[in-house]
């Protein structure tokens, strides 16, 4: 628990999203002190409530691990956006909000007569962050997408996977989180713009463009192609490097390790580690610039050295020799690992339905940073409170932007 208000205390965010990217964007705000209200469809709620995983794989909207994870530090109100009275509630919430995050299909808010013009008329300083697969405009704006469609069209998927094998996507829901984190950053930028300029904004977050501009080599690949026409191939790790590289997962006795030798220093250390006292081996492989026909022989030697040893032992031996080798930890092993336990990387909290669970904690640490003040809300769990607050005319209790009229300080003003 933080001893001081979170850094975003007083910032009010409305979460109209129903899927991972939008919910992760607003989670970042809630976890760092902002007041986040989640607007959900009556009786059904967010899509992440139906996704799971669930205890015993039995669907339950209050026990979906995905929803529980993504909606910490938020309150929930159920509103039927086609109902005039509920729509009025939404507009009142918009009046008191600093930002709205939505991820409806392009055009859906407009069809509800809740498009940006309507919302900005209600609150001219509002930041409206719109997350979609391909952006709000352009010939593909109406295209349907899932995570793998986003990875195929935006991510480096063409270059991931084995040589001569199909392209391979990244696992889990990683692409949605990347897009959501970026939408959170964009929303923060919009808040700064509103603070400086006194006016709101409409932010267009295209999932495809987020991935295209990303550091997972996609942007640098696009740059490379513009520079030289090069298209990175599949099946080559670190295709942008040259010189001796020897990388990848290798089987250990009890799992796998990830080896990432990309420099001559690392290479020589690896040769010494797996070569031991074998003078002929050392003489053959030390100081090599590249492997040629003897790749298979060297590879077999490394595999032979790893195979009988445990993954943790290999990692410790590698670290002692200053070689980048790490164990592939399964999620339950991560949860139990002394490094993360000692750092307090997980936080325990009690949810009224799901019970006591540990959640991933601070994504980064700072004064007034991450605090898990409340677990994910029950569907419409705060509806009555929020309606009562609106009836009492209570917002805005914290209108930071009215009390801070100066522009942000910069070094000129110090």
């Amino acid at each position: 628990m933080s001893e001081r208000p979170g850094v975003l205390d007083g910032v009010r965010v409305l979460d109209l999203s129903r899927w991972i990217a939008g919910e992760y964007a607003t989670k970042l705000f809630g976890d760092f002190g902002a007041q986040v209200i989640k607007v959900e469809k009556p009786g059904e709620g967010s899509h992440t409530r139906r996704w799971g995983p669930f205890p015993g794989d039995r669907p339950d909207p209050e026990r979906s691990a995905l929803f529980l994870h993504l909606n910490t530090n938020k309150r929930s109100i159920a509103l039927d956006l086609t109902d005039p009275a509920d729509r009025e509630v939404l507009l009142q919430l918009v009046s008191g909000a600093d930002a709205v995050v939505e991820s409806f299909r392009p055009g859906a808010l407009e069809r509800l007569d809740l498009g940006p013009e309507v919302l900005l008329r209600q609150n001219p300083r509002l930041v409206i962050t719109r997350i979609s697969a391909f952006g709000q405009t352009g010939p593909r704006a109406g295209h349907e997408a899932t995570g793998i469609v986003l990875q195929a069209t935006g991510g480096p998927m063409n270059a991931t996977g084995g040589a001569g094998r199909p392209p391979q996507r990244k696992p889990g829901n990683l692409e949605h989180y990347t897009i959501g984190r970026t939408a959170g950053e964009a929303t923060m930028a919009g808040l700064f713009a509103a603070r400086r300029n006194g006016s709101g904004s409409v932010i267009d977050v295209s999932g495809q463009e987020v991935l295209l501009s990303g550091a997972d080599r996609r942007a640098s690949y696009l740059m490379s192609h513009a520079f030289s026409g090069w298209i990175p191939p599949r099946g080559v790790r670190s295709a942008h490097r040259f010189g001796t590289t020897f990388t990848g997962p290798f089987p250990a006795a009890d799992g796998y390790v990830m080896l990432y030798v990309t420099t001559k220093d690392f290479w020589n250390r690896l040769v010494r580690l797996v070569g031991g006292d074998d003078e002929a081996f050392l003489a053959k492989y030390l100081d090599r610039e590249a492997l040629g026909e003897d790749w298979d022989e060297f590879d077999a030697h490394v595999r032979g050295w790893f195979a009988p040893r445990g993954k943790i032992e290999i990692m410790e031996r590698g670290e002692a020799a200053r070689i980048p080798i790490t164990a592939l930890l399964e999620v339950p092993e991560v949860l139990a690992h002394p490094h993360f336990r000692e750092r307090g990387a997980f936080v325990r909290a009690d949810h009224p339905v799901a019970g006591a669970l540990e959640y991933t904690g601070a994504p980064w640490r700072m004064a007034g940073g991450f605090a898990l003040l409340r677990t994910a809300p029950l569907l419409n769990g705060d509806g009555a409170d929020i309606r009562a607050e609106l009836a009492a005319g209570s917002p805005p209790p914290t209108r930071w932007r009215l009390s801070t009229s100066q522009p942000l300080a910069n070094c000129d003003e110090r």
Partner: protein
Amino acid sequence: MTGVTKVNYLESAPEPPLTTNSVGTDQRRPAAELPLAGIRVVDLTVVWSGPGATALLGDLGAEVIRLEGNNRMSRQASARVTRESFRASGYHGGTYPDRTPEPRPYDRTALFAWHARNKLSACCNLETPEGRQAALDLLAVSDVLVENNSNGTLEKLGLGHELLLQHNPRLVIARMPPMGMTGPMSNYLGYGPNFNSLVGIAAMDGYEGEPPDSAGENYHMDEAAPAGLAFAVLAALWDRENTGSGGLIEFSQAEAVMAEVGEFVIDAQLNDRAPAIRGNTDPHLLQDVFETARDDRWVVLSIRDDRDWAALTDAMAGLGEPDPADRRVLTDGNSAEGRRLHSRRLRDEIARWVRTRTADQVVEQLQAVGVPAGEVMAEDRLLADEHLAAREWFVSRSHPAVGRHRFPGHPWRADGFDLAFGRPLPSFGEDNDYVYTEVLGYPAERYQDLKRRKLVTDEQFA
């Protein structure tokens, strides 16, 4: 003005865009200011996650100054790289314009250019007393420091965050140690794939039913860190308005990315299990990647529900009479349970159909009936893509070091304020004059002395 306006980097506009910082001598202020106009960021980052983060701060209008040593590689390219060394190692050279590193490889690599937009470059050798002093002087008049060096590097240079905060209590200092600054593994060596493996991501990555194998260039931690770091810096600057104080952001990249498997962390507690390796499949969707009529051109598609399935099978049936056996196979997909049980067989049927079609045909036909589908896009296809062209995503820019090219655009756009996209990259030391004489205010003789002693140069030696 800074060096940013010496060359017109835009295609045709007569005036520079609203991209230069407003610190310094330029007093023109646009009607709507960039979100971070007037904020100065000192960039001591090295590779990928760090420079990716400062690029985002530059997009928002911050003045990002990279301090780069002339005696070490700060741009992932050595001054000694040549076409000859490419030939010796068999390297394809494709990350350089025309596959040519000369004459200044460190100005010419795509690995630098992808993140270097809007940044300034000043030469500074931090391990020399003069370099350290210049860094301290700069940090005294700056708002943010971002670094992603190994733990302890700044301390060894006498630039630890505690000392810097004594110097300038308003400074926001973002440090990006992969495993954090404390804990038993905090000093472990590694790259993105290594740390992905320590937070559970690598163990779930691989082809369906096969041993784990991170998908080629899947570093993911590098992908995840930049926007998180930029959010953190923005939150700290926001907070500084209330407290008047900067402070430390400890950005453990592994813990930042761990949130992306947060649902599996909960699942592990609920069901005592680890996520399976699913390749291109998904537990909730019938999906895969399929080769089209053209070799090595692939499409992906997902079936979310019965409606998607009906739309897909209608599309498949419309192409000719499937034989009765095919029909029976396809009816197995009429329910979610059937699609789960018969996933492999159904995907084989889809694969046969896709193999007779072009990528454009498959995507257009399925999107027309609301089924999620897309092509696995190679770089040449993206640069020619009409959707991205309509959205004007690529941006044509030129710089004497690399020539004119189309650069990747911003990750998002706003109606209501601008984002910066001016000079595409700085040559090494291109902004020495501005930083040393205007920002630091060094007298001419002091600056000339540093240059004479090769402590400040506009070329790199390492």
